[in-house]
């Protein structure tokens, strides 16, 4: 029976995927809603196969009108042929995203057919300690940005005894938690969202493996409110997982019990910082906590807590299934395995590129991404989100890996690259970095709370040409105070985009005063 595959991914929907699905269904076609293949510039990308599990051909940028009376055919101008053979996909190494865009994210059978639970079954057959050591051996590092070895973190939590919630009396239940940080707030990143929308069972499987490894009984996914589709999908997936015995008191008949709940963010970038996230999950203001104590020892509600990013946790099932050695063999130096790069901004072929660490920024921006969407020259690429530096067009030969990128003054962050063409005003981008910090600062520490506002003002003075050189000196001093003095990365890293703009694109600062900057945002 022939089947149409139409993505239900939020990005695909944002350009009309739902309307296409409705049309096809209205015409009596069988439609399976999938995640997105990650070739976002092609969305809506509609696929067809003569069998649910057969090879697929696809059409890109499909419109509802195109499906109005006649169905798309291979002779249509937007026919892509076999989707798996598309160069963009064929050149990737998909571990985490191996099922995303292919399966119906809420069909557990689909998940199992495509290798789901292989990792968990393997893990449950091992001792928890062996699972921890496998993750250590894989070299998996935290995908949230800091790049801390996940296995070492798990080892710490595994070594703790479960603890009752802080402040509870004698006899209260004792816990360890697995917290997944799905507060993907960096501009230019969307891999967590796509994974949760496209293969939520993968995340669940990863969390169960982590729970087994460290002896946790409860899991929480802290998911940003800006991702309603991911929330809905994950909620349904959790429900199904419980029904299928993949969660609950006796997972896969092993006797091991673990369950997961979702907590939804409420519009705070800082809550992507792990301790602020814990505060937010505990229902408080998302203020950064001081460390120590480490969350691994005293985390959520005072209990030992594993905190990993979505991509970190979603890497775990395939590591367990395919073996940590295979994973560790991939990558660049101490950056093992694959990274899900996200190409965004002014880019011709924006989307997901999962490949081993070590690919250069240039390869991502030009070979995969095809340069700018506008067709104008690339001028700057911001890596690592709003707190990441801007690289100039001639700095893109750097390998995308934690250490290599840091040495080059870049930052891997959550693996996003935001491309700008030559119309960008880098003084304005620097000003925005400060403005963003001012908007999102939790307000706890002085350098961030006051410094960001002063940063905006200083940059506006530079833009206005008031005492520009003195103000540049002041700006550098301020950046030092923020970088060295801030409590967390929000204030500490904001100088990165600012100083990279000032240092690399000084011409935009020097000609300041010749034009007035219009403030964006309010």
């Amino acid at each position, binding site marked *: 029976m022939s089947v149409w595959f139409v993505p239900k991914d939020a990005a695909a929907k944002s350009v009309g995927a739902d309307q296409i699905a409705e049309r096809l269904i209205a015409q009596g076609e069988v439609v399976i809603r999938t995640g997105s293949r990650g070739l976002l510039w092609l969305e809506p990308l509609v696929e067809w196969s003569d069998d649910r599990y057969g090879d697929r051909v696809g059409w890109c940028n499909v419109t509802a009108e195109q499906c109005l009376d006649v169905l798309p055919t291979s002779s249509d101008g937007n026919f892509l042929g076999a989707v798996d053979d598309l160069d963009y996909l064929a050149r990737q190494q998909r571990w985490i995203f191996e099922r995303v865009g292919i399966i119906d994210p809420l069909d557990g059978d689909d998940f199992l057919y495509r290798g789901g639970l292989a990792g968990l079954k393997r893990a449950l057959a091992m001792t928890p300690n062996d699972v921890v050591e496998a993750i250590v051996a894989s070299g998996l590092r935290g995908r949230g940005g800091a790049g801390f070895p996940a296995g070492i973190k798990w080892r710490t939590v595994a070594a703790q005894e479960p603890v009752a919630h802080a402040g509870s009396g004698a006899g209260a239940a004792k816990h360890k938690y697995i917290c997944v940080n799905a507060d993907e707030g960096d501009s230019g990143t969307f891999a967590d969202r796509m994974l949760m929308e496209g293969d939520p069972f993968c995340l669940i499987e990863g969390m169960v493996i982590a729970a087994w490894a460290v002896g946790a009984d409860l899991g929480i996914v802290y998911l940003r409110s800006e991702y309603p589709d991911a929330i809905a999908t994950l909620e349904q997936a959790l429900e199904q997982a419980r029904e299928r015995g993949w969660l609950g008191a006796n997972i896969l008949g092993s006797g091991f019990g673990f369950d997961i709940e979702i907590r939804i963010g409420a519009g705070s970038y800082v809550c992507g910082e792990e301790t602020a996230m814990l505060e937010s999950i505990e229902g408080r203001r998302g203020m950064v906590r001081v460390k120590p104590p480490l969350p691994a020892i005293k985390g959520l509600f005072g209990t030992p807590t594993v905190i990993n990013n979505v991509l970190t946790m979603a890497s775990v099932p395939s590591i367990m299934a395919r073996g940590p050695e295979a994973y560790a063999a991939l990558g660049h130096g101490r950056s093992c395995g694959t990274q899900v790069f996200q190409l965004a901004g002014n880019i011709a072929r924006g989307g997901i590129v999962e490949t081993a660490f070590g690919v250069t920024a240039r390869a991502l921006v030009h070979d995969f991404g095809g340069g700018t969407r506008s067709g104008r020259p690339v001028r700057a690429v911001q890596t690592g989100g709003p707190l990441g530096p801007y690289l100039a067009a001639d700095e893109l030969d750097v390998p995308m890996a934690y250490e290599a990128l840091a040495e080059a003054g870049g930052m891997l962050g959550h693996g996003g690259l935001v491309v700008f063409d030559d119309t960008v005003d880098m003084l304005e981008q620097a000003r925005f970095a400060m403005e963003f910090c001012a908007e999102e600062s939790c307000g706890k520490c002085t350098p961030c709370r006051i410094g960001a506002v002063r940063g905006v003002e200083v940059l506006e003075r530079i833009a206005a040409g008031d005492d520009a050189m003195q103000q540049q000196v002041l700006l550098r001093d301020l950046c030092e105070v923020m970088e060295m*003095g801030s409590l967390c990365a929000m204030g500490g890293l904001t100088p990165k985009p600012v100083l990279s703009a000032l240092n690399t694109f000084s011409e935009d600062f020097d000609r300041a005063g010749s034009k007035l900057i219009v403030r964006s945002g309010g």
Partner: protein
Amino acid sequence: MNSVQQFDPATDLGTPGVLSDAVVNVVIDGIEIQVPEGTSVMRAAAIAGAPVPKLCATEQLEAFGSCRLCLVEIEGRRGTPAACTTLCEPGMSVRTQSSQLDRLRKGVMELYISDHPLDCLTCSANGDCELQDMAGVVGLRTVRYGEGDNHLTAPTDASNPYFSFDASKCIVCSRCVRACDEVQGTFALTIAGRGFDSRVSPSEEQAFFDSECVSCGACVQACPTATLQEKRVIDVGVPTRQVKTTCAYCGVGCSFVAEMKGNEVVRMVPDKTGGANAGHSCVKGRFAWGYASHADRITEPMIREHREDSWQVVSWEQAIAFAAERFQTIQRVHGTDAIGGITSSRCTNEEVYVVQKMVRAAFGTNNVDTCARVCHSPTGYGLKQTFGTSAGTQDFASIDEADAIMVIGANPTDAHPVFGSRMKQRLRQGADLIVIDPRATDLVRSPHIVAKHHLPLMPGTNVAVLNAMAHVVVTEDLVADAFVAERCDATSFAHWKAFVALPENSPEAIAELAGLSPESIRHAARTYASAHNGAIYYGLGVTEHSQGSTMVMAMANLAMATGNIGRRGVGVNPLRGQNNVQGACDMGSFPHEFAGYRHVSDDSVRQQFADIWGVSLREDPGMRIPNMLDGAIAGHFRGLYVQGEDIAQSDPNTHHVTAALQAMDCVVVQDLFLNETAKYAHVFLPGTSFLEKDGTFTNAERRINRVRPVMPPRSGKAEWQVTCDLSAAMGYPMDYPNSAAIMDEIAALTPTFAGVSFSYLDKVGSVQWPCNDSAPLGTPIMHEQRFVRGSGQFMTTPYVPTDERTTRKYPLVLTTGRILSQYNVGAQTRRTDNQRWHGEDLLDIHESDAQLRGIANGDWIEVASRAGTTRLRARISSAIPAGVVYTTFHHPVSGTNVITTDNSDWATNCPEYKVTAVEVRPAGGMSP
């Protein structure tokens, strides 16, 4: 006297001290130093003499890490960590000064000052501002940011009568918020908004006065700038000298530093070295001391021939002579025992001691009693019978180690707020709480605190409930057998065990009577008995019953049976109502006991006193207050010396008390104000406020604190001197050069005080008795190795219901209590702005009882008992069970004691304030 110590970084080590046996060696600026494990780099640096600049840190609060002034460099570590949140690690080498650190600190300060008014010279905190000091320390000279976004026009909130909040000066260090949370435990403050918009918010950005704030002053104390400041400082200026002394309100006995300008108090600041309060305070001690200089104060002696006459101001000599002559005449005509005296729990140990000495030695009678008669006399009786000492067993700090806390008939967050806060800290750490009280007090459920068990029993059923708990302990095998075998008297235990095991003492048997479910009693008993450390704290809800003494013994039994005596975290602890209840009792104010609780019939003891006092002493007990009042009505008791106590208002059955006073030939009142009792007096001797006293108070944990005069007596005479003068006029001179000499005499005559002297107290700050050769440093925890009486004595505790029964005519039970802002009969607090929080007493009534009677919230109602009738306004409340009504007694106009009865504790005659059968009806025509 020292000059006021303005902020000095060296005196605040920045983060709380840590208790740890393990030590860590670190090097700070080349100085090697050893600190307990867990100590912050900031604290270590301060100890090493290399203090790090700081603004958000103070040793009263957990490290927060927000100001970022305390950045340091640590060898082998990246970046510049904050000294406050970084813990010392073995071998760590820290640099507190470098050019980079200079730059960063100056940069942080530049940011602060870019949003701060530049008005240091005219600022009320000039010279007492940490921000100002730190700007100097980091050497900030210019602010380069120019005009920008700021909070300089943020408004000032002056709604609180005692302090103001000037938001324009706030540096958002959160010290106030953290103090409210961590120290006080009220959680009234938060930071609202975020980032640059962050602002301190009382409740929902309300005025302080309208918010959840309880005015404890912790936020004011914590504020490093002039943002939160005492209005007195704004009005008067910063103080110039300081004197350490002790608060004269409740039995917590907080240490304060009176900050003075000349002879004027500028402010009272809680002393962080205070043994009882460790730097915390409540709205009364911190702010409500203005009564001491209130216009109502009487500062000259007055006499009158008849109580109908108007008062006549006379000299001290005339007043003393008049009183002495009257007393002597009475004794000539009606006998030696026709006069007596009452000592006051508000006065110092020394003042109390000389009054009881005057009564025994000069009057020649044992007719001396103390106001503790009406509050905690059953404590003295009950604990003496069981443990051997008439005092609580623990220090306050002990509660930090309690795992189950049982609060019975006490409302510490209102009546003992500073200890209440400490209790809440422990509860927030996870101790289990059991509240046995008819009312849902604050502790039962308030932000971040919830009692595991609340037993809202019917007033008057305490003993039945405790017996039922004991029943559970002995029948469910929860007895601490080893402790009982080793420490307690086996025979009495066996009797007690057999008694409480009787079916009539089971929870099921008494549940209906007590108005509780049997399960709730069983659960509570298990929680207390199975805790590692179980501690009992109780108040007047235990003692002021006709079975008050039985109940005290019942609690002592339970503690012994479960092994909860003799170490930190356990014990049986009375929360004393007044500042010196413990001391007044210790000083021999009871008619049957000399100082140190030794019976007057004990020949050897009596001989000691007789030798030193140089008189022969009576061997029979004298009259208690109620006996004196009865005697007055009967006509054989005719003269009374009342020290600092308003029996006409505070004692039960007002009609009876005033009739008794009226019947006497000579009533001498020594007080600050012309109180209700003074209406019946012939001689008024002006007293001294605590700010004028020189002596000691003993708090509920047996801690002897120094009370130091911060100003000369307004009456020209110390109170003990007045007593000595009267004694001399009665033919028995008492010559003390100063009050220190009185304490020396007390120490010489009282074994538990043997090591106490003013000079010793000045050296050590405070000490808990017994303080003597075998315990030179005092005794925080009693009965550690053995009970004072030897082995613990179990007392069987039959439940005998009170005679005060509800009937169809009087169907409701009235019980009484206190509120935070007022104190006792309000003589002091009503003369302060505390009136604004509680301007009248209200009668709390359950909705169903109100509906039945057609009473709406705020209605004027009439409360009638068998003893009398009074009028109050009603408040519908869910905090009390149906069938019970509740009121406070802070306002004389409420006349609460007009309706309380003559019933009293069987053993001590402590009045049964807590149970009065009443009827409540709408009072027509009285509505406002």
